[in-house]
């Protein structure tokens, strides 16, 4: 092992795994063996590097040469050229939108503009080996915390101004303080890893790419507030995250970094993983605690807050994954250093999951206060297929959308609130002209109808009634009075619901009404859907580009298309169910949607 001269990092985040990175890695190992250079090259599987759109990815260090969209059959060439002859293989390198070839990872715009605090290890280390985490100052923050008084650990977090990254943006230090101040022998630390917002995958990437950073953060809190048991509540949809967490906990125990008398400090701390079972409401903290207790995940009124009366009725600190992942940085570098990042009232960074109609879909971490324009266009590379930006959706089903006129907003907890949306956990879905805003509101309302736990009436019944009205509008049966009804319902649901789910459920409706009311009116008065999404309001027609190949006729599931071979075909509008199959299948783009 004397002569390791190259480190090859293969991204094995969820995105790259689905793109086939495992086969690429196997091909690499095979090729290295074949050419007798396996002893000179160390191959590592890392967590998500963030550039999911470009996967599978390999990065060659020390130089940081970045190869993208690799197939197993490409790898041998790279080994022959790069590893053996030291020549970079240009054709697999990244090309910028202006066709410039870029060799190194840190020169690519997508990476260059990011600031990594939470994701600083993600994509650099092998997440299943604790040694790699330790080599990057792992568990040093815990050791440093032990040298501090418990009180001053809480003070440091308070001073950092860190706000909960799960959505609410409440001061993390204050939460810790409340729990620390509540007397009791038994206290708990809980990590909310029930990343339920559709369109968000930040927490998943942290857990899969750097699980120890979360465990260490929880242990520090345990020490600071006097808790000896931690729970990570992870959603069942993330089996790999659960596996990596359990693996990390086992390794930390082996090294004496969890368990009894950690590092000789006299402090005991243990972490256990509890698995969710597919209920969105369990992201709400009181519902989550019920679920850990093995019960139905129904929320309860607050106060008392979990900080004073939480899990098994004991004082409990509950924070989400990204919040926990900030703790080690603050303790190691100090609150003052942390506050240099971001804005005054919103220090630190925020991780966003970029998705939707965007070129560079993936995971990005930027300082708070970065503008939406920078995220979408400079980092995200703009809209897919040269489309036009219509809106960005943040905060999932509890949030709202940001229209094009606010592209220059500096994103933080407070600015988003003024626009009628919220940070949420960090899902950022970019939408082009192809998205219908009324249908979007209906989509989120359907989500809330499904996920409402049913405990309180405003949420259970109100979301259903709202959905029904939206359904009328999108099927061409809307009336103008429905707009007022929607607004009134929204107000009542928001004010009267028991928990966060119901209180925020009307937000997507209010937000789309605020910025895209004209689309609602268009649906109601003109029976028109400009995005051509609402089926009842569109029709398919065959234009004279049709050569009569008959593909559409075959594809139509209801035999609504007629026409002789080599003759113009016609759609029988009475029979047509607007499934769009003909549109998808036509090889000549002869079918039009109106």
């Amino acid at each position, binding site marked *: 092992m004397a002569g390791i001269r190259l480190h090859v990092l293969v991204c094995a985040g969820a995105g790259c795994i*689905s793109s086939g990175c495992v086969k690429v890695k196997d091909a690499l190992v095979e090729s290295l063996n074949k050419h007798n250079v396996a002893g000179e090259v160390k191959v590592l599987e890392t967590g998500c590097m963030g550039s999911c759109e470009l996967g599978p990815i390999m990065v060659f260090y020390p130089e940081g040469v970045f190869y993208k969209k690799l197939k197993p059959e490409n790898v041998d060439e790279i080994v022959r050229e790069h590893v053996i002859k030291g020549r970079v293989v240009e054709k697999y390198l990244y090309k910028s939108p202006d066709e410039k070839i870029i060799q190194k990872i840190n020169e690519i715009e997508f990476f260059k503009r990011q600031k990594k605090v939470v994701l600083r290890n993600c994509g650099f280390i092998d997440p299943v080996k604790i040694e790699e985490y330790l080599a990057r100052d792992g568990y040093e923050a815990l050791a440093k915390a032990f040298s501090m008084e418990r009180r001053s650990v809480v003070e440091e977090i308070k001073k950092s101004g860190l706000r909960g990254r799960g959505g609410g943006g409440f001061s993390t230090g204050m939460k810790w303080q409340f729990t620390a101040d509540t007397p009791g022998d038994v206290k708990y630390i809980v990590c909310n890893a029930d990343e339920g917002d559709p369109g968000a995958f930040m927490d998943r990437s942290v857990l899969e790419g750097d699980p120890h950073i979360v465990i260490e953060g929880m242990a520090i809190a345990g020490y600071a507030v006097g808790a000896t048991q931690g729970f990570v509540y992870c959603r069942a949809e993330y089996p790999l995250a659960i596996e990596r967490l359990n693996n990390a906990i086992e390794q930390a125990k082996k090294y004496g970094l969890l368990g009894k008398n950690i590092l000789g400090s006299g402090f005991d701390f243990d972490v256990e993983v509890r698995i*969710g079972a597919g209920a969105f409401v369990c992201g709400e903290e009181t519902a989550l605690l019920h679920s850990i207790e093995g019960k139905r995940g129904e929320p309860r009124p607050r106060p008392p807050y979990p900080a004073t009366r939480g899990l098994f009725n004991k004082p409990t600190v509950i924070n989400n994954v990204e919040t926990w992942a900030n703790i080690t940085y603050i303790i190691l570098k100090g609150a003052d250093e942390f506050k240099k990042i971001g804005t005054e009232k919103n220090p630190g960074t925020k991780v966003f999951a970029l*998705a939707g109609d965007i070129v560079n879909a993936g995971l990005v971490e930027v300082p708070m206060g970065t503008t939406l324009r920078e995220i979408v266009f400079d980092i995200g590379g703009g809209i897919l297929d040269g489309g036009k930006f219509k809106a960005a959706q943040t905060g999932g089903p509890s949030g709202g959308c940001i229209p094009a006129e606010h592209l220059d907003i500096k994103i933080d907890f407070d600015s988003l609130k003024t626009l009628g949306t919220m940070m949420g956990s960090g899902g950022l879905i970019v939408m082009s002209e192809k998205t219908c805003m009324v249908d979007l509101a209906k989509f989120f309302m359907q989500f809330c109808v499904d996920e409402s736990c049913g405990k309180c009436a405003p949420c259970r019944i109100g979301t259903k009634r709202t959905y029904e009205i939206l359904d009328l509008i999108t099927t061409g049966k809307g009336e103008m009075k429905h707009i007022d009804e929607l607004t009134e319902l929204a107000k009542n649901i928001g004010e009267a619901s028991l928990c966060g789910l119901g209180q925020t459920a009307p937000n997507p409706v209010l937000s789309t009404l605020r910025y895209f009311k004209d689309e609602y009116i268009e649906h109601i008065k003109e029976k028109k859907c400009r995005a051509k999404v609402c089926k009842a309001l569109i029709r398919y027609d065959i234009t004279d580009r049709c050569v009569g190949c008959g593909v559409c006729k075959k594809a139509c599931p209801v035999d609504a298309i007629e026409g002789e071979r080599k003759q113009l075909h016609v759609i029988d509008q009475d029979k047509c169910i607007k499934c*769009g199959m003909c549109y998808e299948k036509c090889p000549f783009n002869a079918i039009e949607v109106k």
Partner: protein
Amino acid sequence: MCSCNCKTDYSYLDKIIEENKSREGILINVLHAAQTHYGALTPDIQKKIADGLSIPLSVVYGTVTFYHFFTMIPKGKYVIKICTGTACYVRGANRLVESFAEKLGVEVGGTTPDGLFSLETVRCVGACSLAPVVTVNDIDIFKRVTTKEVDGIIAGYRKKEA
């Protein structure tokens, strides 16, 4: 999972109950383990868990019916899940749902008569950059799926069985 009237072997269930019965709030983890092994949480299984963990059967049943993940009816050999998270929605997941439902001849939540396929939707699998996403048995992941590919995906599994 046994579909005839012969006796199901509950020794695995007894084992997980024994291992977990002293742990507070462990019900959901036990239900997960039981469902993974037996395919569904039948009334018999729920009764055994209630007795074993000393929890009222009503609470076990209430928990099973509360969460989407738990099912009392066995699912098909291949569970096709279409992600209907926001990113997948924006990129056309609804069309996929319709297409799969039509090709398989079952509604969402249903299982084909030959017991081969179940069709489900799932709220975000967290692979939003690959939207729209379809997973089969949580192992095989199909990314950026278009309605054109639906036939091929189904045929691939049918072929395995032929």
